[in-house]
């Protein structure tokens, strides 16, 4: 075998070993949970044996020696001479760590020797991902997987976004120069559809299942429980839930913190549990699920719960008034720095960081965190994050001489500034929102840009429990913005989250709600007796479940955000067939559907719903770009309850139609 051949086999071995070691780690943890399970023991034995053989073939003596020693220990297990115990699993995991280190060493060293010398190349320009000891070359993998550098995917996403923007510009040109309605040109619509598909699929390339990081959490739970003398069963549900790799990575430290917290501060020692009438073994559950364009990851334990009175007394000692807070509100104070859920400070859960850091890092992923806890029963932390950081639904406003985008998830409401319900105090004006005064400043004034005082609508933003109103010149509309970081060249600006590109090619600055509120608050005196913060949220004004059916991602998300802000629960489907499947699984109150869609169109969907007895009560609202009377008639004949034209589409019109349909059924 020539040196070159051997080298390529060693790279193959590296890939193989990585997979086998991951499987072995998982099997070891399963073995601990299952006890003397012959099937698992046999599987472990098989994996180790194969690894030993492969290592020997490519000449990695140390790796194969280590595997051999492990194999001998496993032999005793297989023959039943020694029972499965936590000590044995400890030893097994340690041996696997050792094998993994030896493999990395062997592969790294050998590759360098053959002439690639990756260790001698200064690695300044490319930030390498979390120390992959083994880096297979970008080529085809045996499982039909190609490894692609992340930058290349981002480049692809950028270009797809640029193509979609160019397409919109062409549409505008057709209308302005030739007077042609783009939606009426089949070729143009076809391209829209394809670009939409392309955009959605491209975004998906960055998505990974939550399961890619749960093994690491399982291992942390297990090791910590062993150290602290707890018995803990670990469970994962919804591990196949996908979200953006960047978001997941940003969350990994927070999740690690939360599960360690659950072991350390949540689950009691076995004696204490038994005394409290619980089984000696505690449970920690990680449950991931997708809700609309968000992913919820809940970490739940059945331990002692958080002692709210302790949280209150700790907070009071820091000078925080807690008398007016309900227990649930007081509980949220655990995210304040300096407060802890622990009875005494230990270094275990936090590795020196507290829940305030968790909240900050979840915030950085544009998410939020909530906690619920019942004394004696357990605690649940919920992380709610957007599926992708790439596309952000925004409200675009005009202020000064340019447009700004405000992230939709921070917008409470936007409305005209009616003189009737504004109040003034200490040179600031305020509006009444849900019975509470909310202070209002000029947006451009807050940004320090020269301007005349605006007289347009007020947009109320919320960040944490703080609300603040910003007056702008005009509301421009809602838009999904592909948000980009401003890069390393510019300093971090608190009020700016990033920037995107408008369809007309101009750069659109995306503002950060928390930074804006902070800055507005600092730039003037606060009214002494009417703080704008409000922990009391308005009750959702509307209720009902709506299924939004549209093949365009943007349209779906836009409608979702409008409806959700109005208080409806929203589910999504990308064509008629998918919608029908979703409806059979779980009925909804109203279906809002597009007409032109692949597989089954809106008319077909309406007819199918009407012919299904179980869905007789489901209202159907068709939203179409076809304005012809024939189409409207056809929609009514199919059994639709309402028909809205997209070009006449506005937020208010949509909500009015939905309210009418749901109200009349009420």
């Amino acid at each position: 075998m020539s040196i070159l051949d051997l080298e390529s086999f060693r790279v193959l071995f590296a890939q193989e070993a990585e997979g086998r070691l991951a499987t072995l780690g998982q099997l070891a943890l399963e073995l601990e949970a299952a006890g003397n399970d012959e099937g698992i023991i046999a599987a472990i034995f098989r994996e180790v044996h194969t690894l030993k053989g492969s290592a020997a073939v490519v000449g990695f003596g140390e790796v194969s020696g280590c595997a051999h020693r492990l194999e001998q220990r496993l032999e005793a297990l297989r023959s039943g001479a020694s029972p499965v115990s936590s000590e044995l699993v400890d030893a097994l995991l340690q041996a696997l760590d050792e094998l993994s280190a030896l493999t990395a060493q062997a592969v790294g060293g050998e590759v360098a020797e053959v002439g690639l010398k990756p260790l001698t190349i200064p690695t300044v320009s490319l930030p390498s991902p979390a120390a992959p000891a083994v880096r297979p070359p970008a080529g085809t993998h045996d499982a039909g997987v190609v490894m692609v550098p992340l930058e290349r995917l981002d480049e692809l996403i950028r270009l797809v976004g640029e193509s979609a923007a160019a397409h919109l510009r062409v549409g505008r040109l057709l209308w302005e120069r030739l007077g042609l309605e783009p939606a009426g040109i089949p070729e143009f619509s076809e391209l829209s559809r394809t670009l939409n598909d392309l955009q959605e699929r491209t975004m998906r390339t960055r998505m990974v299942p939550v399961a890619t990081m749960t093994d690491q959490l399982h291992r942390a739970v297990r090791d910590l429980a062993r150290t602290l003398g707890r018995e803990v069963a670990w469970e994962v549900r919804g591990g196949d839930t996908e979200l953006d790799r960047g978001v997941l990575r940003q969350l990994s430290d927070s999740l690690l913190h939360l599960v360690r917290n659950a072991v350390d501060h949540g689950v009691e020692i076995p004696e204490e549990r038994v005394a409290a009438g619980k089984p000696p073994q505690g449970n920690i559950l990680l449950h991931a699920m997708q809700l609309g364009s968000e992913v919820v990851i809940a970490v739940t334990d059945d331990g002692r719960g958080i002692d709210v009175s302790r949280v209150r007394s700790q907070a009071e000692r820091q000078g925080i008034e807690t008398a007016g807070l309900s227990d649930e509100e007081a509980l949220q104070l655990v995210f304040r720095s300096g407060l802890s859920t622990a009875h005494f400070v230990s270094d275990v859960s936090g590795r020196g960081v507290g829940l305030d850091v968790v909240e900050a890092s979840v915030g950085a992923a544009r998410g939020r965190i909530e906690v619920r806890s019942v004394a004696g029963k357990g605690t649940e932390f919920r992380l709610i994050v957007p599926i992708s950081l790439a596309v952000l639904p925004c409200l675009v406003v005009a202020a000064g001489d340019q447009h700004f985008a405000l992230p939709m998830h921070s917008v409470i409401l936007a409305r005209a500034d009616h003189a009737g319900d504004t109040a003034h105090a200490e040179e600031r004006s305020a509006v009444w929102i849900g019975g509470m005064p909310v202070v209002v400043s000029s947006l451009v004034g807050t940004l320090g840009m020269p301007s005349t005082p605006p007289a347009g609508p007020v947009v109320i933003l919320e960040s944490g429990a703080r609300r603040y109103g910003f007056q702008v010149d005009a509301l421009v509309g809602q838009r999904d913005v592909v948000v980009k970081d401003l890069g390393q060249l510019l300093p971090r600006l608190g009020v700016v989250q990033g920037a995107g590109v408008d369809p007309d090619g101009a750069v659109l600055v995306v503002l950060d709600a928390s930074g804006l509120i902070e800055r507005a608050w600092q730039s003037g005196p606060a009214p002494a007796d009417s703080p704008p913060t409000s922990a009391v949220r308005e009750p959702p004004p509307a209720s009902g479940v709506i299924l939004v059916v549209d093949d365009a991602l943007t349209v779906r998300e836009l409608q979702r955000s409008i409806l959700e802000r109005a208080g409806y629960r929203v589910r999504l489907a990308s064509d008629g067939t998918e919608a029908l499947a979703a409806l059979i699984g779980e009925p909804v109150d109203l279906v809002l559907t597009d007409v032109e869609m692949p597989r089954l169109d809106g008319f077909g969907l309406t007819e199918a719903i009407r012919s299904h007895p179980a869905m007789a009560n489901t209202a159907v609202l068709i939203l179409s770009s076809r304005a012809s009377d024939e189409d409207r008639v056809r929609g009514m004949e199919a059994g639709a309850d309402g028909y809205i034209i997209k070009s006449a589409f506005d937020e208010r019109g949509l909500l009015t139609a939905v309210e009418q349909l749901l109200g009349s059924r009420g």
Partner: protein
Amino acid sequence: MGPDLYAVPMDGVRKVVRAPLLTKLPTAPALVLGLFNLRGEIVPLLDTPALMGLSRIPDWPFVAVVRSSLGLAGLAATAFPEPAALGEPVGPSESPATAGTYAVGGRLAVLLDIEELLGGASRRGNHLLARPSMQGTG
């Protein structure tokens, strides 16, 4: 820039564009003139003389887009940037982030060190790019 000639190595220049459509970046340092779109990439336009600690540029009919390890940046210029071969070095230069003075035809050009100009500015922390300013960027 104004009456002065400055040079950047050709291989560091990505493109030359004519007065791009500019979006102001609120709360940014004054020497960030704004952001513009270069084929889907968002590029900051920088006030070149201000970067070197000289007086602010009055207007910017042209922009040279340069590459650096920190990303793309637009350097504002008052006249059309043209390719030229630098002659003999004729002496050192005084401004920060420059690498000597060269003869070009009958004129003098100061060679800019892009990495130092951009990277240096962002590394120095309390200087230039890293210092937020309250004023608008127009």
